[in-house]
Structures are given as C-alpha cells and as structure tokens.
C-alpha cells in the first residue's frame, strides 16, 4: 500500500538536465564568442563572451584596452556571466590576441557581418 500523494516524489528526478544529455548538440559552452553590435552611426561594440574561468577577465580587459587602444568594460550578465565589452570593431584583433596567447583557435567563434 502506497499512497502516491504521500510519497516525496521529485517530478524532475528522471528528467535530468535536458541539455546535459545532448551536450554535444547545442553546446555553446566551450566556445569563446566574439560578437559585434552596431551602435549609432558607424560606431560598433565588440563583446567577448565565454572566456574560460582560468583567465582573469579583468586583467584581460586591461590588456585589450592597452593593446587595441580602445575603451572597454566588464559587464556582468545573468545568463552569460562576465562579458568583456570593447568599443569599436575589435573582433579580428581579439581573435588574434587570444590565439597568440595560447588559446585554441577552434574554440573561438567570431560572429557578425
């Protein structure tokens, strides 16, 4: 005799993480995304998202700013975590910088037009 209502039943017990099983399908986790966004006029923003944890994004931002001669900021996003934001189209430069400093080129995804 068991009353179902009295059981402490976790409805999501066997569900698991829906994306956990298919981690290879839609995983964007391993990639470093470099995106561009248009602002007003011919101005643009470059965002760097998905930096591996072992890198200090604050220091990286400092290096970026110095290297690319642009301003930038660190944005905390709820979903995306820390995102480096730079002024201007720095996609190619960021990619080259990261590759030069030992990141795998295949892990970097450059988006945009």
């Amino acid at each position, binding site marked *: 005799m068991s009353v179902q209502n009295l059981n402490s039943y976790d409805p999501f017990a066997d569900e698991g993480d829906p994306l956990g099983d298919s981690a290879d399908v839609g995983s964007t986790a391993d990639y470093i*995304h470099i995106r561009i966004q248009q602002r007003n006029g011919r101005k643009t*923003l470059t965002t760097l998202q998905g930096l591996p944890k072992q890198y200090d994004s604050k220091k990286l931002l400092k290096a970026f700013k110095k290297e690319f001669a642009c301003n930038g900021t660190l944005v905390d996003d709820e979903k995306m975590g820390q995102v480096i934001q730079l002024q201007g189209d720095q996609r190619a430069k960021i990619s080259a910088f990261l590759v030069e400093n030992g990141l795998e080129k295949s892990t970097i995804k450059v988006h945009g037009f």
Partner: protein
Amino acid sequence: MSEEPLFDPSLKKRKKKNVVFIEDPLGADADPTKPAPETIESTTINGESVDLGPTTAHELMAQEAKPEKTEKESEDFKAMFGDMKKKKKKKEIPMDFGEDSGTSTPITKDDAAPAAEGPTITADDLDFSDMKKKKKSSKKKAAFDLDAFEKELTESKKSSKTEGGEDEDDEGPEPDGSHLDNIDEEELGEDPFAHPGEAPVGLDAGNEPWLKSDRDYTYQELLTRFYASLHAANPSLLSSASKKRYTIAPPQLFREGNKKSIFANVTDICKKMHRQPEHVIQYLFAEMGTTGSVDGAGRLVIKGRFQQKQIENVLRRYMVEYVTCKTCKSPDTLLTKENRIFFMACESCGSRRSVNAIKSGFQAQVGKRSKNKTG
C-alpha cells in the same frame, strides 16, 4: 648478410599469408589487406608465368604490386630498401637466393603450385631483385620492338627452363622479368618505381593498349579506366572545381531611413536554400546582434545599417553551418526539428547530423536606457 635478421620476420609473415591465400584463390583478389594480395598476385603471376608465356597481365600486376608493396611495407623493409638498392648496383642477388632458397626449397620442389609459393616466400629478395634486373634489362631492351617481344617470349621460356635447372626459386621470377620488360616498353616506361606516377597519365591520355590484349586487367588500370569513362559520361562529377556551383541570388539590401536596412529577397533566398525563413532570419539576427521584422511584402527589415556584402557573409556562414552537408558538401539537405534539436539530413548522401541551435549571445545595452524596459 646483415639484412638477414630483418628479412626473417617478414618472410615468415609472407609465408603465412601466402599459404592462406593460395588455398582460397578467390580470397586473394578480394582480400582487403593490401600487402598480402599483392604478394599473392605476384606469386600467382610467378607460378603462371612459368607455365604460360603470354600471361602479361599478371606480370603487369606484379609490376604494379611491387612498387606499391615497397611503399606500404616500407616499415618492414626500410632497412632492406637500402640493401636492395645496393643489390641493384652490386648484383649480390645470388647470395640472397641461395640463403632463401635453402628455407623455401622443400616447398617448391613438391608441386607446381608450391612452385608459386616458393618465390613468394622469398618474395622480398626475388621480387625486388627482379625489378632491378628488369630495370636494367628494360633499359637495354628499350630499342626492341614487337619482334623483339616475341623473341624474348621464347627466350624467357628457355631461360626459365634453364634457370629452373639451376635454381628452382629463380624459376618464377626470371621469366617474369623478361615479360615485365616487354610490358614496360609497351606502356609504362622502364622504371617500375616511377610507374605509379606514370601509369595514370598514360591511361588518362587514352593509351590503353591493354584493352586489346586478352590478359587479366589490373585493378589500377580498370580503376583509372572507370574514372575516365565516368567523368566522360558525367562531366558534372569531375571535380569540385569544375562542379556546377551552387549559386544563390545576391541579397538585395536597401536602406530605409537612416537606421534600418531592408533585405528584400529573403524569401527567395530561403526558398533556394530550402530553409524556413524564420530560421534564416533568426540566424541573421543572432549573428548580427540586432533585431528586426518582416514587413507586409515579405521583406526583412533589419535594425541597423547593413551592406549587401555584410549580409552575404552572414548568409555564407549560415550555408556552411545549416545548409551544406558536412559529409558530401552537397547543399541538398533538409532541416528537421526533433525534440528541440535540429537535424540536418542530406538528400544526396543520406548522412544525418544534428546542428547547433541558434543562440543569440550577449546583447549589450545600446541606446537610451529609458527605451529599454529590462535595462
């Protein structure tokens, strides 16, 4: 000799393989392992060539097999190669024959079929040494014509008999050598090592003298012939370069006002790619980090200033990721959604793979904060 220890293991391998394959004559041709069949072929060649003068095909096979053999089994024979070259120059072959024949003679003396085995067992020495002989002889005989060919046939028979008396192991390969020379003159040129490069050229050029002869055709010959006729019949298959390119009309971009772009022929392009416009538009927006809408005429209004070239780039990336088959590069694919996962099935090669879901990444705050409710 110094190479003996190196030789022995390979010889043993050969023995096993050869024995097995000789038992199954069909298996020899069909066998996927490359080195073994070649040796078998050569052995059969050797065996048959002893009996029958004109089985030139087999000899050709042997000829082709040997250079390939040298490449494929280079691991085993690297050390030997140097020795072999030396042998070519020095003609030290008889030494090897004697030593090898000592091991293999018992088999060869038994039957005619084992006679085929004998040479293969010693194949490393014999084949290569033969090749050297062939090279030399072929160069010498280069001036000979068909008459010379016939003469050589008879000579080879004689020589095989005589040599058979002297050395049973030499029996198979020796006649081979003479025939091979003839073949060389006919279509391949003198150097068997250079053959792999030369043969396809000759065949492509339409020189297929082996078509008229009633010998067995080699795999290489038939393969090149197959491709030649295939490409002749279907020029579209020739290569990716000459392939009919998959073309799509360039995107038509207009400016609406100062801050919006209009992508006029989205629907046409989507139709051409066999993709849902929603999917394409979603990708465009995610990739360009912007938003927009589809107007009444089916045109896409994109926020921001974009040029045709930029949209083209994004579309190109979309094609790479979601349209062209990763396996066969064919754009003839279908995109279906199953359990929240998109699958791309290729119509031409049947491959099926999952593709990444479109995710728009981080969107930075642009413009006035007051306009943005979330910000």
